[in-house]
């Protein structure tokens, strides 16, 4: 918190100090209020969100350089009256010569082809925000990173180094409940959900790389990642019992995306190399897995867009996993786990009204997550939205099944300035 305040102040000073050049300032003021629908939810509060947010964006651009800052001030009444400041972004972007771009600082990172599902995008996500109705931009959590990209005639090569590991932000029981494997049930507040980060050492940084190239009408890419699972997927035994950890991970993958049949098709695959348990012998650590995804999106009528995705994840050394889970008495997933998603977006009334539904459904885990949204842009400044997040599942330890008590509806009012 202190560090963030300091960084925030620093950004303001740098931008203000830039003096001569013009600084663009804009942002928004937003109220988000949501309540859970399930009375049996073990969370401390009935509100899934009750927050006021001021986002301040500062930007200064020159011919070769660009400085950008995004600061969020929030007051959260759902979460024991907390005032918070978060530096969402603060970076310097610069062009070095004709072929080289550099982006240094706190930034949001995205690549890959999926729509809200990710294989080679091993950058930090914020599922807590995602599940309570915050704007789409909050699904991505920022990372402090250095991004270098080279653009050549054969293609472009991007390298991203994140010196300090940045994990996903997950429901922690305060406003959303989750499945705690150490307790064996869905829990709310009162359980320590914090997981120790890998020590701040040079070798514990994250490195992500992408090589991409246009081949005909298709954008193709190769990816590599060296770091850790972004969720605390593993545990290690300590004197005080098992302790959750972020196991080491490498990912290798490829993707392809282009125009086919009047729509967009995408195909992506990746191999998750669980570096601390490559042979799947340790039941406390995740097994390696291979994941593939296929998606297609098309505008089926004016202002009506529909897409669908299918993802299959195959676990390596499944028999060992099964034996291990049996010994722990945990949930046993399928060897090949399937996930189907669909998004339907309808724009109405000169694109001022957006109706959208996104459904994740896993026939393997027998669980689903539906995101429903209706938004209205009343003026250029004022926008209203209502939405719902609905979870269901047969198993409380499964991906979405664990959030089954978190069904919520929300209302959001935004004033853009």
């Amino acid at each position, binding site marked *: 918190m202190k560090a963030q305040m300091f960084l925030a102040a620093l950004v303001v000073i740098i931008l203000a100090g830039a003096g001569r050049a013009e600084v663009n300032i804009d942002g928004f003021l937003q109220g988000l209020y949501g309540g859970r629908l399930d009375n049996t939810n073990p969370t401390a509060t009935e509100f899934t969100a009750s927050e006021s947010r001021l986002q301040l964006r500062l930007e200064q651009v020159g011919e070769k350089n660009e400085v950008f800052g995004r600061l969020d001030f929030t007051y959260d009444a759902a979460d024991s009256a907390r005032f918070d400041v978060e530096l969402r972004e603060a970076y310097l972007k610069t062009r070095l010569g004709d072929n080289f771009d550099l982006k240094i600082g706190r930034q949001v990172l995205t690549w890959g082809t999926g729509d809200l599902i990710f294989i080679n995008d091993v950058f930090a996500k914020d599922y807590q925000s995602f599940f309570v109705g915050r704007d789409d931009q909050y699904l991505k959590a920022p990372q402090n990173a250095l991004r270098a990209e080279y653009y050549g005639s054969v293609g472009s090569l991007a390298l991203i180094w994140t010196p300090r590991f940045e994990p996903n932000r997950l429901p922690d029981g305060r406003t959303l409940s989750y499945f705690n494997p150490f307790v064996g049930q869905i829990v709310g507040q009162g359980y320590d959900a914090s997981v120790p980060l890998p020590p701040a050492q040079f070798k514990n940084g994250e490195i992500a790389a992408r090589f991409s190239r246009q081949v005909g009408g298709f954008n193709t890419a190769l990816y590599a990642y060296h770091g850790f699972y972004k969720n605390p997927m593993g545990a290690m035994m300590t004197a005080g019992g098992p302790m959750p950890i972020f196991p080491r991970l490498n990912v290798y993958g490829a993707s392809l995306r282009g125009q086919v049949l009047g729509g967009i098709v995408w195909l992506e695959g990746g191999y998750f190399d669980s570096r601390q348990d490559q042979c799947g012998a340790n039941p406390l650590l995740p097994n390696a897995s291979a994941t593939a995804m296929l998606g297609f999106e098309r*505008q089926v009528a004016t*202002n009506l867009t529909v897409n669908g995705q299918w993802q299959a994840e195959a676990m390596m050394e499944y028999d060992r996993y099964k034996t291990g889970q049996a010994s722990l008495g945990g949930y046993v997933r399928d060897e090949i786990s399937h996930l189907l998603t669909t998004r339907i977006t309808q724009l109405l009334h*000169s694109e001022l009204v957006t109706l959208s539904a996104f459904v994740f459904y896993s026939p393997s885990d027998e669980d689903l997550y539906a995101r429903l949204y209706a938004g209205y842009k009343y003026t250029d400044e004022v926008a209203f939205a209502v939405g719902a997040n609905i979870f269901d599942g047969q198993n409380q330890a499964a991906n979405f099944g664990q959030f089954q008590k978190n069904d919520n509806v929300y209302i959001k009012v935004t004033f853009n300035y």
Partner: protein
Amino acid sequence: MKRLITTAVLALMALAVTHAIASAQDATEVMKKSHMAYYYAANDAVYEVTMHLFDKKGGERTREFTMLRLDKEDGGDQKYYTYFRQPSDVARLSFMVHKNATGNDQRWIYVPSVDLVKPISADDKNSSFVGSDFTYEDVSGRRWTEDNHKLLPESQLDGKAVFVVESTPLKPYKGFAKRISYIDQTTHIPLKSEYFDDKGEVVRVEKAVKIEDIGGFPTVTSRSMESLKKGSRTVVDFTGTKYNVGLKDDFFTERYLKTPPREYVK
């Protein structure tokens, strides 16, 4: 006598057919020249654009953006780049179109708040451009080869001599069933276009509100589109238009989609 009449009728018919063909050729030539003058002036262009969207109650919304255009060849493929400034909820968002003159366009959007580059399925050129009364096709032009053209009697509009051309789509098209264009005989700039639906009613009317000479190219610097059924209207003002500035092909790639060429996009 009978033979004479037959011959005369045949001759007249032949004349009429020849005239119709000539007229169709003239009409097509007019539409081609108009397309060139309107959408292909110079080899590249930079526009500062302000769009005013008026709803039927008179409420106004504005969109401000910079637009870059690069032609591969006159009348052929083009590339467009759009960088939004206003309203603030879409500020810094950029949008790119690779227009394929004879096939499907390719479109991409970059959403900076999530660092997301996304191709958009561009099957429907008839959908609205940023919620305005203009469609994507209005922005980058409908190729003259997609319609049948017929010259109607010449006329005057705003004190200028105009060709009047009636166009009907070769293939059934939901954008319009018929269009009548009023084209300046000297500059070939379309001064007015009326779009009819299949019931023969005018549904949209486009007008060139202001035309200026920029670097020797007659340029529409203010353009309006009225949707008669919806009761809405959009006025687009172009300021600081520059031609032949030397835009690079590179500017229309993912690299510049994510960081605009600041020489032209301040």
